[in-house]
């Protein structure tokens, strides 16, 4: 978790000065113009134009939500990797599956408990503006009130997190049961559940990020949004898993004998693939909106071109895509710790900035304003969940001991170095 601290300090060092840059007169005028444009085109006021003070509940609520969405992305990313392992009947990932199973199991009850303050913030009018708007006064809300109404939010958010969490827990429970008897039917049960679970996952994650994050600006439309959140989530999870399993496989640690460089390479390759996939998805969302140029959609990005938000967007474009993409093109780099550890810290930072980019322009239309709350919640929540993960992880065997595919993960693809065959 020292990683989180380093990343947070780097964030503050990097962006601490940006708000003053963004707060110049030119961008303030631009912002006012944009606001006028947005309200004229919608017939509704775009809420929250007044910058909020650091100690207001509104600021705390948004900082909390940003941190929550970051942590949620690791949990849903891990759930996806677990489901994908079973769906593809994969061999190579068997020995690292216990890690993703355990991270995904944090969804229930821990992520559920951590979601409760968000519901509280929303009801007290500190988060989603539509909690306090009469749909009759706002056409954009009126057409979406089936989903965006306080009752639906209060019921759906906890239910979805619980369902995803129970899915993760069930698969993990079967995997642990298999540690005892080694019966193959646990694997086929998990595969069947994963086949249904992937649908629950797709709908659940999409609805969750619509409700929690996208609806902060409920006027916005994007069919890409769910996939966008998913792509960033799996991206962050893969590099986290890469570094975590790397650490767990050091001499004397539990994965030492079951984790090899091929698996490490495969994780890095998947991370690389999701770098491209994320960029593809985010670019598609941006490009379609830009090309169609409908005010109902463009306002979301127009608002994110105000002040320093424009540079945050550029950081996401270059930092989330170009830098890791060009860096990881080379095969050998993917196992070079001197590169991969900084890339991991960088990826955490990028995912957090991406969440900030989605959440914060609502309360800080003039540009990025980092407050003390951001690192407090981000690091606090990461450390808390990290500790919960570690205590859960230690309660059970560190890898599926009797998984039928474990042998494949261990012996396959490993070739003795020159000279080794002479011993035969």
């Amino acid at each position: 978790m020292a990683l989180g601290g380093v990343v947070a300090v780097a964030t503050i060092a990097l962006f601490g000065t940006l708000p003053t840059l963004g707060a110049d007169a030119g961008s303030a005028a631009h912002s006012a113009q944009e606001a006028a444009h947005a309200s004229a085109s919608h017939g509704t006021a775009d809420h929250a134009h007044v910058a909020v003070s650091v100690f207001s509940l509104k600021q705390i609520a948004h900082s909390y939500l940003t941190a929550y969405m970051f942590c949620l992305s690791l949990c849903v990313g891990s759930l996806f990797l677990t489901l994908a392992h079973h769906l593809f009947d994969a061999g190579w990932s068997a020995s690292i599956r216990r890690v993703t199973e355990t991270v995904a199991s944090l969804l229930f009850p821990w992520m559920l408990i951590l979601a409760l303050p968000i519901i509280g913030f929303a009801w007290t009018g500190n988060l989603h503006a539509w909690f306090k708007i009469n749909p009759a006064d706002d056409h954009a809300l009126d057409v979406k009130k089936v989903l965006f109404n306080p009752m639906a939010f209060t019921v759906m958010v906890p239910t979805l997190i619980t369902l995803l969490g129970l899915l993760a827990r069930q698969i993990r429970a079967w995997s642990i049961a298999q540690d005892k008897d080694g019966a193959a039917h646990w694997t086929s049960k998990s595969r069947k559940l994963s086949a249904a679970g992937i649908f629950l996952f797709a709908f659940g994650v999409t609805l969750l990020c619509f409700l929690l994050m996208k609806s902060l600006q409920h006027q916005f439309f994007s069919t890409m949004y769910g996939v966008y959140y998913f792509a960033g989530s799996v991206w962050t999870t893969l590099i986290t898993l890469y570094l975590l399993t790397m650490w767990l496989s050091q001499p004397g640690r539990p994965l030492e004998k079951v984790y090899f460089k091929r698996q490490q390479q495969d994780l890095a390759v998947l991370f690389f693939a999701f770098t491209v996939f994320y960029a593809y998805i985010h670019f598609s969302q941006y490009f379609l909106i830009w090309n169609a140029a409908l005010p109902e959609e463009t306002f979301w990005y127009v608002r994110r071109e105000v002040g320093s938000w424009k540079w945050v967007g550029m950081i996401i474009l270059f930092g989330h895509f170009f830098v890791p993409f060009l860096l990881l093109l080379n095969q050998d780099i993917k196992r070079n710790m001197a590169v991969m550890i900084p890339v991991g810290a960088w990826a955490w930072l990028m995912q957090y900035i991406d969440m900030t980019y989605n959440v914060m322009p609502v309360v800080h239309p003039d540009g990025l304003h980092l407050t003390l709350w951001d690192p407090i919640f981000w690091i606090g929540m990461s450390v808390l969940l990290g500790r919960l993960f570690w205590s859960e992880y230690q309660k059970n065997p560190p890898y599926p001991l009797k998984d039928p595919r474990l042998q494949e993960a261990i012996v396959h693809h490993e070739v003795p170095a020159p000279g080794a065959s002479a011993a035969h």
Partner: protein
Amino acid sequence: MNSNRSKPHGLLAEFHTAADIFEAAMRCRDAGFTQWDVYTPFPIHGMDEAMGLRKSPVGWFTFCGGFTGFFTGMTMIWYMNKFDYPLVVGGKPLFTPLYAFPVSYEMTILLSAFGTLFGMFFLNQLPKFYNPLFKNERFKKSTDDRFFLCIEATDPKFGMDATRTFLTEKCHAAVVELVED
């Protein structure tokens, strides 16, 4: 032609399982042979390392192709829409990397694929119309259920008897001699 009749091409060893040829490949690697290859009905994981092959340079052809494609796409659209025949479409700027991106992206993929394919052809000296292996009747099973390893006579370590002994005794394979034809 006739002078080639008795000129040896190499020794062909036949194996029944992937594990056997894998083991044999490691022995050949460790024995220091350089002019040899394996022929299997399907890809065998880890064979590259077992053979001691270095990393393929094909990636560089791919990279150069992709790089060229991306900038060709960008330049082409800039030239056509902004320079040669400025045309306003849908109130959009005459040129921005944004709308040029999808085309540049496709060009990147296209030329990357060309780079990969033709780079691979070039490095493998393809197309090649003839190889003495094709004359061997048993070799046809390399697309079915047999695994072959061929050490060529051009290998500096090749010696007809020594290599044959190596393949039969160390690698436990059925060995036949191939001739140039």
